[in-house]
């Protein structure tokens, strides 16, 4: 039962989500008594990075035509080299765009948002997130071929070094339907979905001019920043920072919520966080019921003080 995994890279550099997907694939392969083959499109990173997490074969697709992303062309390319019964993807934006197309192309079952190693291999059954994090589903695949996408920060990155070898495949996949016109990447910003720590703020902050202290706290923690929905609706922060049921679902190790009430729709996207800290002036704020640690007080005093104390801890 050959296990394949899509090792996503950005501009040639593997994402943390790729290492997590390889870690997951290795767990599946161990269950199946087989090995992991990783597939990557135009990587520049060293293959050693994938051996480290358990991929023993690596197929590097080289294709100038795939310099720019196209879900359809990438699905085509992956399908040409990944002929396993199980193909693992991370649940990133790009990978979760390719996976459904590939599933149809190969006639495979597709199970997305997977949280844990499979409960059984035949039939293939696995636990996944559902109802925007308000519940879990145990999903069973019909038939033999299965594609899964692994929810980010759920399974974790697990070192499991193997010795491996790399193969380069030159492809030239037709990519005529879509053309990238421009590409803007804000450099230096931590990817919210990959971040281990997220500092998030809501309408309690009163205005966009007060986000400096949130960014300062995030900086000392090496964290990404996020916000509640009304904050991005009013335009205080970009849409990309909106977390919750209708925004991004995240699962960092630490989520610090400042001036956020904890409405059910907000919780839905963040309650998979391992540790939750809530800072709110209202002792009745519903968020305290879903928190591990709470502080009742004014964020305008608490956040700068907390930032100083963490800075001191980090020396």
């Amino acid at each position: 039962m050959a296990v394949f995994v899509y090792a996503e890279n950005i501009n040639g550099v593997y994402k943390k989500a790729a290492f997590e997907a390889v870690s997951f694939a290795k767990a599946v392969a161990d269950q199946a008594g087989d090995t992991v083959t990783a597939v990557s499109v135009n990587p520049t990173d060293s293959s050693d990075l994938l051996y480290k997490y358990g991929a023993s074969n690596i197929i590097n697709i080289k294709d100038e035509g795939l310099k720019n992303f196209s879900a359809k062309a990438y699905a085509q390319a992956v399908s040409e080299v990944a002929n396993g019964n199980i193909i693992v993807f991370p649940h990133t934006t790009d990978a979760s765009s390719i996976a459904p197309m590939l599933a149809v192309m190969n006639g495979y079952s597709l199970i997305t948002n997977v949280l844990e190693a499979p409960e059984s291999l035949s039939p293939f059954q696995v636990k996944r997130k559902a109802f925007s994090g308000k519940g879990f589903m145990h999903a069973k695949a019909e038939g033999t071929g299965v594609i899964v996408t692994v929810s980010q920060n759920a399974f974790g990155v697990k070192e499991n070094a193997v010795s491996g070898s790399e193969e380069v495949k030159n492809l030239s996949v037709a990519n005529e339907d879509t053309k990238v016109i421009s590409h803007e990447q804000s450099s230096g910003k931590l990817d919210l979905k990959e971040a281990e720590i997220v500092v998030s703020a809501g309408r309690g902050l009163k205005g966009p001019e007060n986000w400096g202290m949130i960014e300062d706290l995030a900086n000392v923690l090496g964290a990404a920043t996020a916000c509640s929905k009304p904050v991005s609706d009013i335009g205080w922060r970009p849409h990309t920072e909106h977390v919750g049921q209708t925004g991004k679902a995240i699962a960092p190790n630490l989520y610090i919520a400042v001036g956020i009430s904890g409405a059910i729709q907000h919780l839905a996207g963040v309650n998979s966080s391992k540790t939750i800290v809530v800072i709110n002036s209202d002792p009745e704020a519903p968020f305290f019921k879903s928190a591990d640690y709470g502080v009742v007080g004014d964020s305008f005093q608490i956040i700068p003080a907390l930032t100083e104390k963490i800075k001191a801890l980090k020396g």
Partner: protein
Amino acid sequence: MKILVCISSVPDTTSKINFTADKSAFDKNGIQWVINPLDEFALTKAIKLQESQGATVTVINVGDAVTEPVIRKALAIGANDAVRVNLDPKDSFSTAKEIAAVVQNGGYDLILCGKESIDYNGGSVPGMVAQLLNQPFVNASVGLDVNGSKATAVREIEGGKETISVKLPAVIAGQKGLVDEKDLIIPNMRGIMSARTKPLQVVEPASSEVKVQGVSYDSVPPRAAVKMVSPDNLDELVRLLHEEAKVI
């Protein structure tokens, strides 16, 4: 131009999610159904194209008769007509197949979807429809313009945005940003009245192949009781995060 908007009927966002006693299914008791919030962005975008380019907008839902109020709401928002495929969908693939079958008979130039539905969070139907129709697919779209047989879509990427030119027909899956939240259309009385007489065609499913089954469901276990820390003792909070939770 003919636009098809795929809408899903989902539990409203305030719903507490419960499962049946034997955990084999989602418990639909007492649930209010709404248009999947991400689909509303797609629907509003379609109505804007209807206004600016004279497009016709058809909504499609794969669902049993229980979903008709949600379809009527989409008509009240401004869609011209609707198709319901009479099947309580069991997985993303069966849903996608039904939508693709309707598209094949209808000749649509643009298929708009929400990026994922907030119930089963498959995020799979749009990409599957695109592949079944052999059309290009842009996911996580936060901007869209149509110009003749071409569209320009903006998609969200990790840490940025990408602008793409797409040949039509194509499948675009949207989210907030495709239109602004403030531009979402709330149906008025006239819309609601006219929705009652707009055509809603019910078609029987073309196939019933299922690829994934929900075997059982669990609720999220409750968190341990919150530990409150005094705002005058933030050293204690830092200690707890460092020594107890070990997250900093």
